[in-house]
């Protein structure tokens, strides 16, 4: 077993090593988190007070659009793939990913896709008027069809799609073919399970997204009329196609976070995960349901009542497997012997706040009231509880959990806890009041508002600034840990179980070149 590998830029450009590629994914994702976060700061700064103070309305729309796209496709999804690259081979006892060269390619497409996505912002006329996409991350037709640099956006989405599809195929191949002897499917760590299901979702829906943007492309430049009402196309149909992708996409972002949290809680409760099998089934059930509920995003488009009823019933059904998951995590903690190191704090934060997001999700699923909530800040609050205190919290928890294994050093527990408490207080100050302004009647995606919404927006913005600043602390902690710190043991955590904790810390460049035996 040797640690020999090329150095310098060539190491990163040509690497086929799953750990290197995982690292690349994670740093890329962190960069995008900061870029998307900076945009969120612009949004919150403009909304701090009623009246337009900082940016033009179209620039604001561009900020909300780019913030959404960058966070979804640039920050959350690549971070999850980064975890999969680092952890899946180590957790199933494989020497590397099944298709290492494709792995390199699927990462290196990403920076170019991201570049293509943000490039139009700096092209054309006055930067301050917002030259980039400004039609919302959902890019509804016909508004998106009015955008004169649409092709950049479309090809960026194509590239992002290629990257995630290749990443997913690789993960599926790795999990199916590279498991150590004795590692049966039902013995796999839950993180591996959630990623397997996520990968299936990805290869099922990313091509649909690619199809949708391709139809937009031909509508705009090649004279077709799939969605263009002026030529007999159907803008509502665009929404159906989009959300057929979009709803599973939501679960693509959250399922791996479920997996991470399901690794962390048993470790720090020193007790096996409660209901392992039911967790697997619940994850599969959520994935299945995600395909048949899409139109709950469009109750107000004027569907037939029968359709609305169906989508309402199917949607609220998701609460069942989701509740099972929350109950299982709670039961895992029950009668454990818990300690509260930083990863555990983030994981518990995840369970609490994701549950709040789940409850508001149920409220939104009830169609008659959704007519009031739809397209208001209530929705914004809901999906940020699910994606920030859900998916992002899962990611941060995972970073603290595995960072000692990756770097061989312990992070600073004091700073980690400071990071958690700063983030958790500020994130609630940021997003909880958004429920209130939404219920009061503030639509989403507006740059300016009636003064009756002012107080809660000001509070929300203050929370936003603190939350944004706290993530700089995260960066500092990570860099400090990479540079040094207390040496980590091989097992790192007292209650940690699984193959990745049997290898040295830091994990050598090559691991499990001889497959371990799993009993």
């Amino acid at each position, binding site marked *: 077993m040797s640690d020999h590998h090329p150095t310098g830029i060539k190491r990163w450009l040509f690497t086929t090593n799953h750990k290197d590629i995982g690292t690349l994914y994670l740093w890329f994702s962190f960069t995008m988190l900061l870029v998307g976060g900076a945009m969120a700061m612009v949004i919150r700064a403009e909304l701090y007070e009623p009246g337009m103070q900082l940016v033009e309305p179209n620039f604001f729309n561009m900020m909300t659009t780019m913030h959404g796209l960058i966070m979804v496709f640039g920050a959350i999804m690549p971070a999850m793939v980064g975890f999969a690259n680092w952890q899946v081979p180590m957790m199933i006892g494989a020497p590397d990913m099944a298709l290492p060269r494709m792995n390199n390619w699927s990462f290196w497409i990403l920076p170019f896709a991201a570049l293509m996505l943000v490039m139009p912002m700096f092209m054309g006329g006055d930067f301050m008027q917002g030259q980039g996409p400004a039609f919302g991350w959902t890019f509804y037709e016909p508004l998106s069809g009015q955008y004169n640099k649409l092709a950049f956006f479309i090809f960026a989405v194509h590239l992002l799609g290629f990257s995630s599809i290749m990443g997913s*195929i690789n993960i*599926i191949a790795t999990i199916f*073919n590279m498991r150590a002897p004795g590692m049966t499917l039902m013995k796999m760590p839950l993180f591996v399970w959630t990623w397997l299901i996520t990968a299936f979702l990805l290869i099922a829906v990313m091509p649909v997204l690619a*199809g949708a943007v391709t139809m937009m492309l031909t509508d705009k430049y090649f*004279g*077709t009329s*799939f969605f263009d009402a002026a030529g007999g196309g159907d803008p509502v149909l665009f929404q159906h*196609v989009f959300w057929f992708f979009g709803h599973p996409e939501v679960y693509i972002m959250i399922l791996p976070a479920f997996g991470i949290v399901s690794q962390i809680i048993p470790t720090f409760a020193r007790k096996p995960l409660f209901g392992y099998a039911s967790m697997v089934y619940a994850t599969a059930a959520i994935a299945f349901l995600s395909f048949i509920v899409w139109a709950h995003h469009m109750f107000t488009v004027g569907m037939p009542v029968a359709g609305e009823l169906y989508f309402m019933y199917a949607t609220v059904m998701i609460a069942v497997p989701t509740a099972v998951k929350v109950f299982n995590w709670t039961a895992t903690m029950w009668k454990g012997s818990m300690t509260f190191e930083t990863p555990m704090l983030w994981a518990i934060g995840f369970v609490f706040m994701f549950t709040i997001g789940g409850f508001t999700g149920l409220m939104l699923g009830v169609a008659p009231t959704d007519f009031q909530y739809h397209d208001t800040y209530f929705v914004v609050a809901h999906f940020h509880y699910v994606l920030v205190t859900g998916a992002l919290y899962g990611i941060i928890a995972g970073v603290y959990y595995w960072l000692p294994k990756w770097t061989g050093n312990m992070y600073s527990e004091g700073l980690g806890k400071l990071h958690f408490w700063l983030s958790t207080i500020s994130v609630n100050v940021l997003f909880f009041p958004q429920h209130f302004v939404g219920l009061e009647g503030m639509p989403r995606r507006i740059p300016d508002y009636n003064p009756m919404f002012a107080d809660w927006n000001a509070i929300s913005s203050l929370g936003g600034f603190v939350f944004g600043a706290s993530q700089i602390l995260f960066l500092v902690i990570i860099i400090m840990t990479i540079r040094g710190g207390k040496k980590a043991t091989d097992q790192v955590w007292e209650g940690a179980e699984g193959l990745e904790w049997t290898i040295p810390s830091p994990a050598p460049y090559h691991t499990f070149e001889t497959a371990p035996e799993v009993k």
Partner: protein
Amino acid sequence: MPDKMQETKQDKTETNNKRVVGVSSLVVIAMFGFGFALIPLYDVFCDVLGINGSYQTIEDGTYDAKAETERALKNGVDESRTITMQFLVTDNDALDLEFKSRTKSLTMNPGQIKEVSYYVKNRSNKPMVLQAIPDITPNMAKKYLAKIECFCFKKQTLQPGEEKEMPLRFVVNSALPEKFPVLTMTYRFIDLNYKAGVDTKSGYLQTVQVDSTLNDIN
């Protein structure tokens, strides 16, 4: 010997990897196609579930007026109640067209045959090949409405400045549920030449096969 075993295992893994890549790629291609297939599938889906009407269809060539009319007439006239029919038009910003319904609304018994008329004028200096696209609300009522004769059945060619009165003769099946006392119909014209040579500056192509466009939306 162990070396050989190792090798066969590796070969096996590679074969398996190829299989996963192959199958996954097929899934990817199929789902890409499925994205496009969703367009026609929605119509089929709505038909099957009997919730037809949410999605507009160009009725040119796809509408069996005779069968629809026979179906709508077989329940006779229901003289015990009246329904209100409203006739709206929706503007298409892309066209320099004057388009209005001569009758805004009428009250009738379900099962009666009625005729209304629409007026259209090409205000531009180019000929237009127009196709009318219908919509109706409440959309669940669509299947009770039969068009006996309609300008939406065929393309309307209008020379510059030409104007036309166009009839719509229809019947509403008296099986129409009582919860739908008002039906609002709307028509909107699209120009089948519209996409051909819209604007070169913003990147549109100038020459486009118009007929293939029509096939796509059908």
